[in-house]
């Protein structure tokens, strides 16, 4: 993939630096031996979904001099199969085929709930995993989405789909209202304040008349007819949401999130407006959570404050930590484990949450970095 004819000078937007390709002086040692990474088959198949896409025709501006590739090893077949795109497609295939294995109403309901939970975890992964902001009140956004669509649909007899624009507006506003004051805080303080906001939203819903008080909103219309159709719709929406969150994570904004997570001061020194970037993460998380709330209302057709407790926030956070913070495939797996495991353990009756807790502790002892952690090592293209 070396293209000496194409674009020999590295693109330099700043004209002051256009002479920067000057030959290095003797101080910079050059390795003239081609390293194993360069020109390997790994460079040819550039997948659009891989860590960062490079169209096949694109060549790095190699020019006449040899790149100092260092000690990079070509990726193995297994590691390429584990790349996000293939893992994502495999996961989608499993979700599509699952009803063919077991399509009882109970199983479908559990699977639909699991898919909605995956979407919640994907949204929280943006906030906690990518941006490193510990949010203990994430259920607040879930509640804002569910209540906005539920109340509008039942009061004004609207189809649920028509409430989605209002849900988007409401969640963005909620993200700004909760985020703007709290994001000036760091680490533990942020966690405590988000915990408080989570409770404020729940208690507000519990006491307002428009939200139906403790009994909540019921009679929420379905999005589509039949549990099978709704399951597939949910899977489609969640798949788009997960892919979208992963794509955001690989963009300029996603990198800025990680810079903030790693070192806020250094990120600021590199020109990242850390406050704005954190608010963007918060708003993105709010939108994901709110849309999951719409699906939740449509799935159960009734919502009440009891669905949006601190336990719900903690479970979503647990899914993110269990799967691997900042790793989208890991977070999806974590969410499925957290939502399905209590159902599998249902035969144990009263002991099931005890065993659930023990299993989680065992997993975190054996794999503290998560089931499928984000890799520091960048995949070669």
């Amino acid at each position: 993939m070396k293209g000496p004819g194409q674009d020999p000078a590295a693109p330099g937007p700043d004209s002051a630096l256009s002479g920067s390709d000057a030959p290095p002086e003797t101080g910079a040692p050059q390795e003239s031996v081609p390293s194993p990474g360069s020109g390997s088959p790994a460079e040819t198949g550039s997948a659009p979904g891989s860590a960062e896409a490079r169209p096949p025709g694109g060549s790095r501006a190699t020019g006449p001099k040899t790149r100092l590739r260092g000690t990079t090893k070509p990726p193995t077949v297994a590691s390429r199969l584990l790349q996000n795109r293939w893992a994502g497609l495999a996961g989608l295939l499993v979700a599509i085929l699952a009803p063919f294995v077991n399509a009882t109403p109970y199983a479908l309901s559990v699977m639909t709930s699991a898919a909605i939970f995956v979407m919640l975890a994907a949204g929280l992964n943006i906030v906690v995993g990518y941006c490193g902001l510990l949010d203990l009140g994430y259920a607040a956004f879930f509640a804002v989405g569910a209540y906005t669509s539920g109340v509008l649909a039942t009061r004004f007899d609207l189809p649920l789909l028509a409430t989605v624009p209002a849900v988007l507006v409401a969640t963005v506003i909620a993200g700004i209202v909760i985020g703007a004051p709290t994001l000036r805080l760091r680490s533990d303080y942020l966690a405590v304040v988000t915990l408080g906001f989570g409770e404020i939203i729940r208690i507000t819903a519990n006491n307002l008349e428009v939200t139906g008080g403790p009994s909540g909103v019921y009679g929420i219309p379905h999005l589509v007819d039949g549990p099978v159709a709704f399951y597939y719709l949910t899977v489609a929406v969640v798949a788009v949401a997960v892919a979208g969150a992963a794509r955001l994570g690989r963009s300029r904004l996603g990198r800025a999130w990680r810079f903030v997570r790693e070192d806020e001061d250094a990120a600021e020194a590199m020109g990242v407006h850390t406050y704005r970037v954190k608010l963007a993460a918060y708003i993105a998380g709010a939108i994901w959570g709110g849309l999951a709330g719409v699906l939740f209302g449509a799935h159960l057709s009734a919502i009440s404050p009891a669905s949006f407790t601190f336990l719900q926030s903690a479970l979503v956070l647990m899914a993110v930590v269990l799967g691997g913070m900042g790793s989208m495939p890991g977070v999806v797996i974590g969410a499925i484990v957290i939502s399905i495991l209590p159902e599998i353990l249902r035969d144990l009756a009263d002991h099931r949450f005890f065993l659930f807790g023990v299993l989680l502790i065992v997993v975190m002892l054996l794999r503290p970095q998560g089931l499928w952690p984000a890799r520091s090592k960048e995949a070669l293209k």
Partner: protein
Amino acid sequence: MTLLDVADLRLSFGGLLAIDGLSFSVGEGEIVSVIGPNGAGKTSAFNCVTGFYRPSSGRIALRGKDLRGLRPSAVAGLGVARTFQNLRLFGELSVLDNVRAGTHLWLRQSVFDALLHTPRYRRSERECTEQAHHWLDFVGLRGDRYGPARALSYGEQRRTEIARALARHPSLLLLDEPAAGLNHGEKAELLSLIRRIQNLGVAIVLIEHDMGLVMEVSERVVVLNFGREIADGRPEDVRRDPAVIEAYLGGEPHA
């Protein structure tokens, strides 16, 4: 032409006066060193210029534009890049990603480009990666650039930090003790790197304790002691200045 102009800068932490009336200027493409004993206020002055500290009084201007009261990211947007005295790399991220941080300010890419993977997204990501490779080549990084930055040796991490700052395309680069902890060979390489950076037309302000390096590369040297400027001039003059010798070797304070 004056690039950076610092006039009568004062900074106090409570009752402690960390900087007491510092004035110096840096011309376009010039290399100015700031030296002085530990605690003299060198890094504090850097932090004032880059917006991390709010000075109590004084003037800081870049090409005539006042920098006081701006966020560090806004100062960075005006063309000031810095390195940190204690390395501040993003340790868990790949070396390439660290340098990509430098492209953040000029990379044109919207959220929708990223969600839809538009041609503009692909182009900007490719350009960003090319730039990262380019600047890592420029600083002569030999380590694994796909691996996490924390896996690099100390000297290589120092280079990566400079590459990250250069990817910002700054007009002024503040280097805070870049030679600290480097061995003899690495210092020689740093010297040549600083000269190559100057050839790009980038002005450099250097905080450094290594006098060999300072005397070799600087066009001007500013000497601080106890937050006060005690000398400002060409390296060979500063070296003979009695106040400087006294600050470094000790002696009876003048009244």
